[in-house]
């Protein structure tokens, strides 16, 4: 099976920006500017947290609700934003993916599929087949987001 990226290259030699990538980029950049502009007095950790949340938000918005991982991610983000001011303690239950946490000892013995379920948002209530599907899409979107952020960092820090 030929790789999908090479398939794209054959078909789109001078490809324009894909609309969903464009949307992701625009959303992320807007959020970035908003964060930079408005929260100049907040701490460094707070800013980096907000930027990370903006990254995941732009990922989820660009995909929309077509994927279960994106819907789960959007739900998490919205619940976090709602719970933020009244009860900041409850917000930690809606942990964003990739949030650093203490490695629990029982995590070692967990099934690989279980580990993957915890990594992919919304993965806890999926069977294996669907989990792999969602993982594929999530990985692709995540790698796009990483490259977008890397591009922004590179362009800014010349």
């Amino acid at each position, binding site marked *: 099976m030929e790789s*999908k990226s090479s398939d794209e290259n054959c078909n789109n030699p001078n490809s324009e920006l894909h609309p969903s990538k464009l949307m992701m980029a625009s959303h992320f950049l807007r959020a970035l500017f908003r964060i930079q502009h408005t929260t100049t007095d907040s701490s460094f950790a707070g800013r980096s947290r907000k930027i990370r949340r903006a990254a995941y938000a732009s990922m989820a918005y660009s995909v929309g609700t077509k994927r279960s991982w994106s819907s789960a991610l959007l739900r998490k983000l919205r619940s976090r934003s709602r719970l933020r001011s009244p009860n900041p303690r409850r917000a930690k239950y809606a942990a964003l993916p990739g949030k650093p946490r203490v490695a629990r000892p029982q995590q070692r013995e967990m099934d690989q599929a279980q580990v993957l379920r915890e990594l992919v948002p919304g993965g806890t209530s999926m069977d294996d087949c669907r989990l792999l599907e969602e993982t594929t899409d999530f990985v692709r979107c995540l790698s796009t987001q990483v490259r977008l952020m890397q591009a922004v960092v590179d362009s800014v820090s010349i």
Partner: protein
Amino acid sequence: MQCLRAPLSDLSVLERQRPRVEWQQQGEEQSDYQPYDADYCMQSLLPVETAFRALHSCGGGVENENHGNVHGSNDCFSNAWPDIASGMHCPVVGAAASVEETSVNASSSSSSSRKRKSENTRRSKENSGSDGKDDINCKRLKEETGGGATPEAEQPTSKENDKAPKSDYIHVRARRGQATDSHSLAERVRRERISQRMKYLQDLVPGCSKITGKAGMLDEIINYVQSLQRQVEFLSMKLAAVNPIMDINIDSFFGGREINPTCKPGSISMIGMSSELLDQAYLQLGSLQHDMFMDSPALLLRPDVNPPAAVSDTSLGSCLNVSGSSVWNTNLQNVYGVEFQLGRGTALPFQSLQGNLLPNNPKMEM
């Protein structure tokens, strides 16, 4: 022996009857089927891709329509899944659709409902052969459907072909030497689907082509996802550490081609960041599909690689086409201003930016 196997043979006979009738009825349709293969899936979706590209090249504003078609990713694989949902004519996709829809609802009690979630391409021929052997040596695995190559010689039960009731069940052909009870068939279907997904993932995750086996692959996938999430965090920290970037007038930059419905166009208007820096970011984004990270001077030369129509379609193009040299002069001044304000007062960034921009002026004004 015969009577002991009678119940089983009844079941298997019943299974054989239905597909036989179906095969007879749908002979022509099956001739289009191909092996359950990703290649076929891609081939069948090529028309969709070409249509999408044709639409996209037609002119501006098409991106809004195409966004609905593309479902968040831009390659055949991800196109396959929404096509599954919409029930395209592609039999593979259609099979997967029935699989997706019914796998949730499939009750495990009756064998017939199990059969519902098999693939289309494995329509079993009427190949009953010997009397109720469990190994079902009589059944042959047929990857191609239709065709007249059914070994008709091994059908002593041809009289049963006529009295099979019509049904819309999809049947899985048991392979030679394998068990045929419904449990194992369903298991096999599930395993094959999982292996198909794993193949897709293998293409996606770099460095996985050598690894065979589910456990190793899953480890690699988990590592990759974790590394990506760590990278997101690291990059967000890096972005937070950068001095507050000067802002940009986002409205003019995007040129009103904003696709995201949730963005409020006029909400964020700020003082101008160097739009060149953002241009570089967008140009680097344009290279994402090619998975190349060229140097920024080379990247800035990309607009003349694209045909002008294509450039004008993107928001980047709308920025570039604003107006001739005056824009560039003001942008250059912005660049200098930004550099001053950013506090990076060294001459080196000036020179690098200057070196990048000046050669491109004549090109971009074309």
